């Protein structure tokens, strides 16, 4: 294994991966825990994976989904963010989505991933991503509308 390659991956992906996990989990501590586990998984299989970056992202996303399912729902505490109050409403609505739909939304609108890439990352058919995103956006519209009333 080329140690430098792992170091490069760590340096390049640590912050983006923690941010991605944070958006899915709502907790920086939990996000760091999931990302750390992801890096460990990558390091253990370094010689066996073709694309360590993609593998890391898959580990992180799956770790977040698993973590969310274990927690059943998002922690009700305040989110540490400097965003506007309206952004808080939006984040709150995102957090109420089912874990897999939430992952789709974050990957699509934070990571700018295509539906094909999201399907690959989540190991689901593209059709599932399309319908999941469609329903997620519908739920978000409804949630934001309810807030505004």
């Amino acid at each position, binding site marked *: 294994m080329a140690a430098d390659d792992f170091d490069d991956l760590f340096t390049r992906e640590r912050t983006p991966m923690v941010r991605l996990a*944070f958006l899915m989990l709502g907790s920086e501590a939990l996000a760091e825990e999931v990302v750390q586990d992801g890096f460990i998984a990558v*390091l253990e299989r370094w010689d066996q994976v073709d694309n360590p970056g993609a593998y890391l992202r898959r580990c992180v996303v799956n770790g977040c989904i698993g973590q969310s399912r274990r927690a059943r729902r998002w922690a009700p505490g305040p989110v540490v963010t400097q965003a506007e109050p309206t952004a808080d409403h939006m984040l709150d609505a995102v957090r109420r989505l089912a874990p897999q739909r939430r992952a789709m939304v974050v990957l699509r609108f934070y990571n700018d991933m295509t539906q094909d890439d999201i399907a690959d990352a989540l190991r689901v058919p593209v059709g599932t991503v399309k319908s999941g995103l469609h329903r997620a956006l519908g739920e978000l519209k409804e949630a934001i509308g309810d807030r505004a009333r």
Partner: protein
Amino acid sequence: MIELDDAELESQLRQTFQQAAAPVRGEGVRRDVVRHQADQRQAARRRTLRSRRVAVAALATAAVAAVVVAAVALVRPEGDRVDTNPAVTEPGTPTTPTTTPPSTETTTVPKTTVPSQASTPSTTPSKTKVPGEPPAFPPESTNLTHGGTIWGVYLAAVSPDDPAGDAALAAAGQAVRDAGYTTDGPTTCDAGAAEATGADPSSLFVAAYFDTEAQAKQAGAAFEDRGHDVKGIAHVTTYCMD
């Protein structure tokens, strides 16, 4: 009720995500912790794998031994002795007049006809030394604890990638057991072993453990006197026992 079209909603999502994620740095994820935990998991996995191999080998050996014993019992009726050397007879066995002229074979009993005991070192550590005999093995430590310090005598230090490593580890393990010591098999969890033996930190080690430096040196001498190569003697900290 506010009606958002898809484009507005997507735009708001992108902006919200960027704002929310910006303060997050992820500095709690540390490279050294990642590496340490990955090493520990790999070491635990290797130990499990080797333990399974040892168990399978022991079962296979036992099965072969059982088959051999059964086969011998079948081909040798009770009270009958198979003797490959006709010139060597049991005392009291009636002899018939020989028709074969004596040869040199009759005066030399081939080793294959005589069951011999392997000349292995004493299997019980003893504290006395008989003149002319190899140095005695001191008693091993019974104080192996997670995070504890102890003296280790290392008989093998093998890189995981070494194709001949398994044989070296097995031979070292056998030497440890022959000396009457216990071993859980190869380990990667002795901090200080790599430095003492000059081996790669990821190496697998086989060792016997002692409470004092004097005992460790005595054991090292005893092993070497019996032809075993001692890779190093070190005061180490033992992990992976929690």
